[in-house]
């Protein structure tokens, strides 16, 4: 018996631990976390390690504080100035986003969506780790006495870190997102793909069980989706680093994430102790202040812009407008730019500026006919397509016949008809589209010169002086 004493002892110790493991796995705590006995053992271990960790942390912080305070004082004025400028810039940016945020809130209210804002946080210091690469755990110096509870989200200003796992009196354990047993609901920002984030064997956070998608590219931002009920929606998680095939579960892929928070060098954390569907008062105050300052700056900017431009408009040294088609004279000062005019039309018609006679020279009720079109009367070709150029024939062949019928009376009466698609028509007729120049619609010249008696407008809505009413049936178009 004494010969097997050692091996029997080993078996007994192993058996006790295996039973202990089985009990822990078989009877998990219904409230989450560990059972009472396990929690007690963890508490002893944490209590054993925490005091020296706090001493080391406090000593290190004190020494670093003394040194960094001295260094900070040397540059505090410059940093203060930089921070003020940054605050001003951020306030302006916030003011710009304010309206979008309000619109988003209104839409969310319409959809019955409950946004969770970070309402209250508790800052905490990292005082220790688990000490093994098989479990990514951090020990922080805040516990239940500070209002911490299990499953609270832990973040930094850069991004999420993890969640509170076990809470003791003055310390807590934080399960980092790079642990293989962690989990967080995340969302790829541009492709809107959702997934579950957890750590891999190398301690890198990755989104698991994703179908291959070509849209996912390295560098795409990943944010929390809010679906896990732990992390509020929209917190930065990191960026896509690479996509690797899941060898154990093809054809799924794992998306390895480069975390936004530096998980390797964490010192100060924020534990979200309260999330609410209303915005915190401080945030509301900041937004109101930003909105006011943004409006003031915008007004100031608008006036500045006007002040810069107005002297140019009334500059006595500015050249007189030479008018279209005339070459401007050499400017007296290079700072004053000559006013711009559209280039002269390649094919002037009655829409071309200065081609239409002034209104005071017109006789009410008498149509104005362009002499260009009046010069070639072809009264008997109205039933078929007129003689046109080859290009025009090709174009009109593709257009419905009623188009030309409908536009004919307007052209005859000289009403200002705007082509429906000038650019299109220019392109299809083989002409180069000239900005500002319009082309005559394809018309069927019927009568070279038509004089229509001026009708008495019954309602005065569809006709205007000098414009004849619809002369042919089916013309329902109105002058624009």
């Amino acid at each position, binding site marked *: 018996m004494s010969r097997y004493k050692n091996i029997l*002892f080993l078996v007994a110790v192993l058996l006790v631990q295996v039973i202990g*493991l089985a009990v822990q796995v078989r009877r998990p705590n219904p409230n989450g976390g560990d059972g009472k006995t396990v929690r007690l*053992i963890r508490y002893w*271990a*944490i209590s054993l390690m925490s005091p020296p960790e706090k001493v080391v942390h406090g000593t290190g912080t004190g020494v670093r504080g003394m040194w960094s305070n001295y260094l900070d004082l040397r540059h505090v004025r410059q940093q203060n100035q930089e921070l003020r400028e940054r605050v001003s810039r951020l306030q302006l940016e916030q003011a710009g986003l304010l309206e979008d945020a309000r619109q988003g809130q209104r839409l969310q209210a319409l959809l019955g969506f409950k946004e969770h804002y970070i309402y209250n946080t508790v800052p905490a210091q990292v005082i220790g780790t688990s000490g093994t690469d098989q479990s990514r755990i951090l020990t922080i110096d805040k516990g239940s006495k500070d209002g911490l509870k299990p499953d609270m989200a832990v973040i930094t200003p850069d991004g999420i870190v993890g969640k509170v796992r076990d809470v003791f009196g003055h310390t807590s354990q934080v399960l980092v997102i790079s642990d293989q047993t962690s989990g967080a609901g995340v969302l790829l920002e541009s492709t809107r793909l959702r997934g579950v984030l957890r750590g*891999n*064997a190398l301690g890198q956070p990755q989104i698991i069980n994703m179908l291959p998608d070509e849209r996912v590219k390295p560098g795409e931002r990943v944010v929390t989706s809010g679906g896990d009920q732990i992390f509020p929606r929209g917190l930065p998680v990191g960026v896509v680093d690479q996509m690797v095939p899941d060898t154990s579960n093809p054809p799924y892929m794992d998306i390895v994430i480069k975390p936004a928070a530096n998980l390797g*060098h964490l010192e100060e954390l924020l534990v979200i102790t309260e999330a609410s569907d209303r915005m915190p008062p401080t945030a509301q105050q900041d937004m109101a202040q930003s909105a006011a300052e943004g409006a003031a700056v915008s007004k100031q900017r608008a006036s500045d812009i006007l002040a810069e431009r107005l002297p140019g408009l009334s500059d006595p040294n500015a050249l007189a407008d030479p008018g279209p088609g005339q070459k401007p004279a050499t400017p007296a000062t290079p700072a004053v730019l000559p006013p711009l005019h559209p280039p002269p039309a390649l094919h002037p018609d009655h829409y071309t500026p200065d081609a239409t006679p002034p209104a005071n020279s017109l006789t009410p009720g008498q149509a104005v006919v362009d002499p260009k079109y009046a010069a070639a009367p072809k009264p008997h070709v109205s039933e078929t397509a007129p003689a046109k150029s080859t290009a025009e024939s090709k174009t009109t062949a593709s257009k419905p016949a009623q188009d030309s019928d409908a536009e004919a009376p307007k052209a005859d009466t000289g009403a200002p008809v705007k082509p429906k698609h000038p650019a299109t028509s220019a392109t299809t007729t083989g002409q180069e589209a000239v900005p500002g120049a319009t082309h005559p619609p394809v018309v069927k010249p019927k009568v070279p010169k038509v004089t229509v008696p001026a009708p008495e407008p019954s309602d005065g809505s569809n006709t205007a002086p000098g414009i004849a009413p619809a002369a042919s049936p089916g013309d329902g178009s109105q002058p624009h």
Partner: protein
Amino acid sequence: MAMSASLARRELDVQRYPLIVVVLVPLAAIFLQVLIPRFIPKFDIIDLPLLVTIYFSVGWRNPIAGTITGAVIGLVQDALTSRPLGINGISQCVVGFFAASLGVKIDVENPGTRLLINFAFTLLNIGIYLFIMHRMLAFNVRTNWLHEVIKAVINSIVGVFFFDILDRVRPRD
């Protein structure tokens, strides 16, 4: 006569350490293990508590003492992680038992021997740990074997220097 001579030599070779050293060295190792990765994140690839278990087990040459040492240190390590208690406890008590059994038979003062036993016992510890995680607890964790082999190599190298430091706390005859 021959047996009594062998026993006497074995008794002479057994290392005895003051109680305070036996208590404080494992505690210091665990403390450094949880503290240093805060500043050097890659330090967690080194397993100082495992090296302490191997060192004391080999020095004591008593399998029961090695089993208890490994179990206690492993349980404390488990308590500092998020995993169930007993995973490291089981793996390290097995390592402690075999390290003590091996210490009876071979010279463990040689650096080359120390390098080899550290490599072998680190791999054994990892193997038992992963067996418990995958087979007994059915935890869905993934393993990078290359990482584990690198870890064993680094631990064996660090162990040689660490054992040399621990030799200095051993009382001289």
